[in-house]
């Protein structure tokens, strides 16, 4: 059978190598290095803060947040879960992971919400951005780990950059969706009263899209959690490193301990942000109900991340 390969072969891999190694890295390395400065700054600050706060204080704060936004059952789960993490000796790593995830989500929000707003206002921009987001979501993260190491080096900040690439799409998509879904007659009314584009955004579009944007933030957070182990491959520490070390030494117990820490943290963060997004008074659930809910967890992304690494 004739196949196109008989006529011509494309050295696609060479092209990419030439592009990245021959042009992008030599010319832009200093630029990319510079971009990680704000990320490192935020990360260091958060990492120092979370490690400085006593374990009991942090647990109390998270339990209160859970109580307020996710119900009493979830608050109890938070206390028990965090105590478990502390007792298996992974508290400092957990705090490092928390600092990484919060940093990644912060930067995703800073980049993603404005990008979503622009997408909602310009069909052209959205047409260009959409395939980019599709690629970001579908491309296996191992593919961009190598160029990221080449451009940014190894360490915490490059790990967060890889996390941002992976976790950014949902917040952009849902910000765009939320703003586009604001009722047309309300927009028309704002326009008829002579409001400017900015006034419309602040008074109307952002408040009315807030629920959807928060749902996007929740999704982004879950994706960021699932990148914890992968980004540890390029030098990011925390629980991901524990899992990777366990894998390398065939230490099943160590890897599992790290994995459980990730899952507990993921559940707590997911429930708190979901509650924030819904902002309604959560009925007080019992611990049993909470636990059964937890295992019907919609956002199993964290588990998927652990499996992927394994």
């Amino acid at each position, binding site marked *: 059978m004739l196949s196109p390969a008989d006529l011509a072969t494309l050295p696609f891999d060479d092209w990419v190598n030439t592009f990245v190694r021959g042009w992008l890295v030599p010319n832009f390395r200093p630029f990319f290095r510079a971009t990680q400065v704000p990320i490192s700054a935020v990360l260091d600050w958060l990492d120092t803060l979370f490690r400085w706060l006593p374990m009991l204080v942090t647990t109390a704060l998270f339990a209160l947040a859970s109580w307020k936004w996710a119900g009493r059952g979830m608050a109890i789960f938070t206390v028990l879960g965090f105590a478990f993490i502390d007792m298996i000796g992974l508290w400092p790593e957990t705090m490092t992971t928390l600092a990484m995830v919060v940093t990644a989500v912060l930067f995703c929000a800073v980049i993603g919400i404005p990008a979503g707003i622009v997408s909602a206002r310009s069909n052209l921009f959205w047409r260009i951005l959409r395939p980019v987001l599709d690629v970001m979501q579908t491309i296996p993260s191992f593919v961009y780990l190598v160029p990221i190491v080449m451009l940014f080096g190894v360490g915490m900040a490059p790990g967060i950059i890889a996390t941002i690439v992976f976790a950014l799409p949902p917040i952009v998509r849902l910000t765009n969706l939320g703003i586009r879904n604001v009722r047309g007659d309300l927009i*028309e*009314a704002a326009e*008829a*009263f*002579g409001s400017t584009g900015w006034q419309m955004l602040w*008074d109307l579009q952002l*408040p009315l899209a807030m629920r959807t944007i928060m749902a996007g933030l929740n999704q982004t957070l879950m994706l960021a959690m699932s990148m914890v182990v992968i980004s540890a491959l390029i030098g990011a520490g925390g629980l991901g490193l524990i899992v990777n070390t366990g894998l390398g030494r065939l230490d099943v117990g160590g890897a599992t301990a790290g994995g459980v820490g990730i899952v507990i943290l993921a559940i707590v963060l997911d429930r708190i942000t979901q509650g924030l997004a819904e902002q309604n008074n959560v009925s007080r659930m019992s611990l049993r109900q909470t636990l059964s809910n937890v295992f019907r967890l919609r956002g199993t992304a964290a588990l998927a991340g652990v499996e992927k690494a394994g």
Partner: protein
Amino acid sequence: MQPKLAVSQVYKVFGDAAPAALDLLRRGRSKQEILAETGATVGVRDASFDVQEGEIFVVMGLSGSGKSTLVRMLNGLIPPTSGQILIDGEDIARADAARLRRIRREKISMIFQHFALFPHWTVAENVAYGLKITGVPHDERRARALDVLEQVGLAAWADSLPSDLSGGMQQRVGLARGLAAEPDILLMDEPFGALDPLIRREMQMELLTLQRTLKKTIVFITHDLNEALMLGSRIAIMKDGQIVQIGTAQEIVTAPADDYVAAFVADIDRGRVFTADDVSSDATTIQLRQTSVRDALRMMERGGANALYVLDGDRVAGVVTYRDLAASEMDTAITASLQGSLITDFPTADTTTCLSDLYSDAGSGLPIAVTDERDRLLAVVEPADVLAHLSGDATPQEQQEQTYAQPR
């Protein structure tokens, strides 16, 4: 006087092929032909009208007739494809974004069919919206919002959310929001269309009451002819993007421009459209102290009238009928006076009384006196004319003659 709002030769064509379609339109092709040929949709076709200050100008048409498009061109929400829209002499169609914004903030506001209240703000915040975007400080705009809410009877709900209010109340908030910025022109896009009939009626009345003190220039869109006839100083009827007739309620009912309008007005409650003013005729009167019974009888015989109004100086003293006078002359030939046969309990109306209210008075057989606020006789309404108009027998010609005969 310069009209408040002057619309001339405005066209709106939707779609990419607008210029080509516009050209075809001007050559008289129909909406359907243009859609088939160019794919462009004709929204409004050659609309021209003036709206005077303080007038309620109603645009009536069925859905798809282009009335909503037309009203949105008046504040630039939809830019016209061609034509001119002057507000106080300033062309909206050619205003840039900043000027358009200024005009919307200062001169023109809009009230929507589905209220379009902002669900995350309280009633007072909604009402103050127009002031907020122009940078009025918080306390001042809240005070103004409460004032306007007072006018529409909702001051007690200032701090509720719109979702706590019924449809009629929500539209009052919409109206208050439109009034708060003190615009000259109100555009009302089927404002009562989403309300149930009883509330709609109540809101129509309230709008008329408010308008008596506010004297805004109102462009009111509706698909309901009864509403149009009731509210409109003048009415434009639209069909397929075109204005087929502009006129007062009476003109439209008595002289429909074409079969389309005629079909519309066929089952209209004529009693509510026509007023005493439309059916009255010049009064022939006699003076109580100067006219003799004999002269009165002779006048009635000559004019073919059954009754005459009797004036005492300027004031209406009463009415005398031929039958009574003739009888009293026979009985007491020498002492007969008008005074003896005078009926002082006569029916009266003012020029704006509608025919449905005159109907019961017409049953007495006496002509109805049309008086002004100082009880001076302006004209009389013959009972037969009331009945003829209610049944629609009066031809346009007759109507015209009567209009000319009216004392103004």
